[in-house]
């Protein structure tokens, strides 16, 4: 999969390399001198210390040069920051809701999702709302973060410049399942985005006609697709593409065994996710909430078709 990135990635990374580079040089200078003096003026070679006279000029020099340097760093940091704050007027505005412990996205036309779909090369503004405690909306691939503070109207914006998917995390500790308050942002081509945005379905049309599968919106609403991807790549959980009939090594009660994924396995995996864990993945999936028999059937039927 391609790695998604945005205008903010570019802006922040250039500041990063400048500051990191200058810092590395300063560290090298300071450490190099320290080690050099420790060797050259070691008591075995230099038994008698020599008086050195204090120089006000030297003190002023090594005050002023670092001052100038850090002012440049400040300025670069501030300039890139302004890029991150000045939202173009034509930005697509998505309302982001943070709650213990998931993210929700609502588009201007009323469409609601748990994965953030955005069009390539179009500015997107995110209005951040919390319904409980403080969360932190964080997209590392875009170098973007802003706290989601209850009672406060915080915002972010970005313009995606690379297609693909990227993780969304919660960065402000918010209680028990803080570590699983995740989602994804998917950058789509403008055509794909428009097709998705104007359709009644919640997922994207790809090579598979996903929108025809009734289980997909259901899995979306249950939050399955945050960890399980549909494109064959590894997420927090295994990809669901081609899952039916696949032979997997699973761990049950600490013992490894081989299973062929069938109806019975999938049903058990949905109801008791911790019973048999696919090798190489963590035991982190909660039982699917409010799962009816009807839901089970729909999901399993859909998974059979994801080939």
């Amino acid at each position, binding site marked *: 999969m391609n790695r998604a990135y945005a205008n903010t990635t570019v802006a*922040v990374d250039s*500041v*990063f390399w400048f*500051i990191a580079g200058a*810092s590395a040089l*300063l560290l090298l200078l*300071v*450490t190099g*001198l*320290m080690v050099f*003096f*420790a060797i050259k*003026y*070691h*008591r075995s070679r230099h*038994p*008698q*210390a*020599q008086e*050195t006279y*204090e120089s006000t000029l*030297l*003190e002023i020099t*090594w005050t002023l040069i*670092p*001052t100038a340097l*850090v*002012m440049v760093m*400040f300025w670069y*940091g*501030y*300039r*890139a*920051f302004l*890029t991150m*704050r000045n939202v173009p007027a034509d930005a697509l505005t998505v309302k982001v809701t943070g709650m213990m412990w998931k993210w929700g996205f609502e588009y201007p036309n009323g469409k609601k999702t748990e994965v953030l779909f955005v069009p390539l090369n179009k500015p997107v503004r995110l209005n951040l709302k919390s319904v*409980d405690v*403080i969360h*932190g909306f964080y997209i*590392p691939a875009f*170098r973007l*973060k802003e*706290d989601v503070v*209850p*009672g*406060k109207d915080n915002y972010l914006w970005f313009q995606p410049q690379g297609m693909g998917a990227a*993780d969304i995390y*919660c*960065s*402000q*500790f*918010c*209680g*028990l*399942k*803080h*570590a*699983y308050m995740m989602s994804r942002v998917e950058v789509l081509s403008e055509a794909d985005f428009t097709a998705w945005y104007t359709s009644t379905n919640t997922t994207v049309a790809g090579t598979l006609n996903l929108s025809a599968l009734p289980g997909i919106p259901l899995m979306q609403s249950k939050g399955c697709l945050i960890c399980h991807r549909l494109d064959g790549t590894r997420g927090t959980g295994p990809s669901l593409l081609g899952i039916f009939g696949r032979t997997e090594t699973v761990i049950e009660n600490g013992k490894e065994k081989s299973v062929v994924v069938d109806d019975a396995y999938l049903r058990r995996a949905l109801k008791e996710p911790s019973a048999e864990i696919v090798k190489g993945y*963590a035991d*982190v999936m909660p039982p699917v909430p409010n799962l009816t028999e009807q839901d089970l059937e729909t999901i399993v039927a859909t998974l059979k078709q994801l080939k």
Partner: protein
Amino acid sequence: MTTTEPSYLENQSHRKGLASWIFSTDHKRIGVLYLISILIFFSVGVLIGVVMRLKMLWPGTHLYSAAAYNAFFTVHGVIQIFLFIIPGIPAAFGNFILPLQIGAKDVAFPRLNLLSWWVYVIGALLALTALFSGNGPPDTGWSFYVPYSLRTNTNVTLAVFAAFILGFSSILTGLNFITTIHRMRCPGMSWFRMPLFTWSLYATAWIQILATPILAVTLIMVMAERILNLGLFDPGRGGDPLLYQHLFWIYSHPAVYIMILPAMGVVSDVIPAFCRKNIYGYKAIAFSSLAIAFVGYLVWAHHMFTSGMSNTARMVFSLLTFLVAIPSGVKVFNWIATMYKASIKIEPPMLFAMTFLFLFAIGGLTGLLNGALATDINVHETYYVVGHFHYTMFGGTGMGFFAALLYWFPKMTGKMYNKRTIVVAWAHIFVGFNLLYFTMMIMGWLGMPRRYYSYPPQYHTYHVVATVGSWILATGVFMFLGAFLVALKKGTKVAANPWDATTLEWKTASPPPTENFQTIPTVTGGPYEFKDGHPA
């Protein structure tokens, strides 16, 4: 010194055994009490850190529960900050050394000094009670951010009360030191003849007195809101969560300088002693301590660059944050200039002072990415910040504390530790430290958020490396501490001034007599003057 007075270690009070220590008003005994308590809590904090790292070997909910992990990082932070780093150098070494360095018999208020130790112990016991009572240990992180800390049903109220009590211990110590420095200097000990360790304690004490009450008020507000359901911080009751963050950091950022300044003071004393040379830029170092203490007050909101403050506020705090980097830089340049044309012997205290310089330089320089707005937004609340502040707090203050222990242990006990063991321990600490915390900074830049009990698979390798680093580091730390326990029993006896150092504490016996000096000394020169390679 022909007649030998009994040392402070020999009991001269009417009390016996333990009581002669825990009710002693002798600043040296109180310093030792603090040192022992602080080292115990530090060890517990290290062990909790190791247990936290163990869970990070694999993602998922193995080993222990998410709730336990959330409690561990909170307790680790509370212990290491409130019970180790803040009191650390000032309360243990400041108490012991400060009166000796200025030629005083004791601190200005000896009984207040004993009270501050008791308040510390009571605060620590309350903190421990908070772990094992009520609905379990707090799970908020050491910063107790609202509204989560108002809503969680874990034992936040008691833990916050413990921090409130500990604050008073800090205030009392600060008050005592300022008065002592102003009123108790021996004849000839003018302000600019004071050792730089004393200068650093003076700057620290002012922050302790002026900033700590703000923490006290803030914590009282949290308790009041939890108990009385007031609407101060909780937006659900009309409060403002950012008000809490401002109040919290108005104390807790200056507190960072309470933590680091005394360590800088230690290094300023150790370097000239092992260079056999006067410190370069005495006044620049002394004034830069005061500058750090002052500017340090004005930068608190750089902890809040993603909280939704106005762009202007963020810009101003970023600018001020960069300014506070400058006095720290000035100190580093002067220390290195001291080594120029010196006669350097790398004894254990010097080895740790140089380690301080290297690790603190990394800590300071990586802080520049936190000061710059654009880059801080990415690394805020990630492992980058965790790595960065461990470089400053552990690599800086921790190594300074270790250097102080190595430098003054012979003074406190009259005994020398095994230097070879210390060098082996140092090698472990150095390798383990960088493996652990530098790796943390890398994964943080790549987006790994902090306070996660599990993590996405792409961070796995980094977590394994960091965890292995934690084992090496902890081995080194316990080897280091063990060397002192061994030295208490088997250490070789040392003379009054084993390092040939110049400051006043070395002019009396090791260990010093109860009254410190047989006759109050009169000072005629600067603190670091050598003549022909020996103290002038």
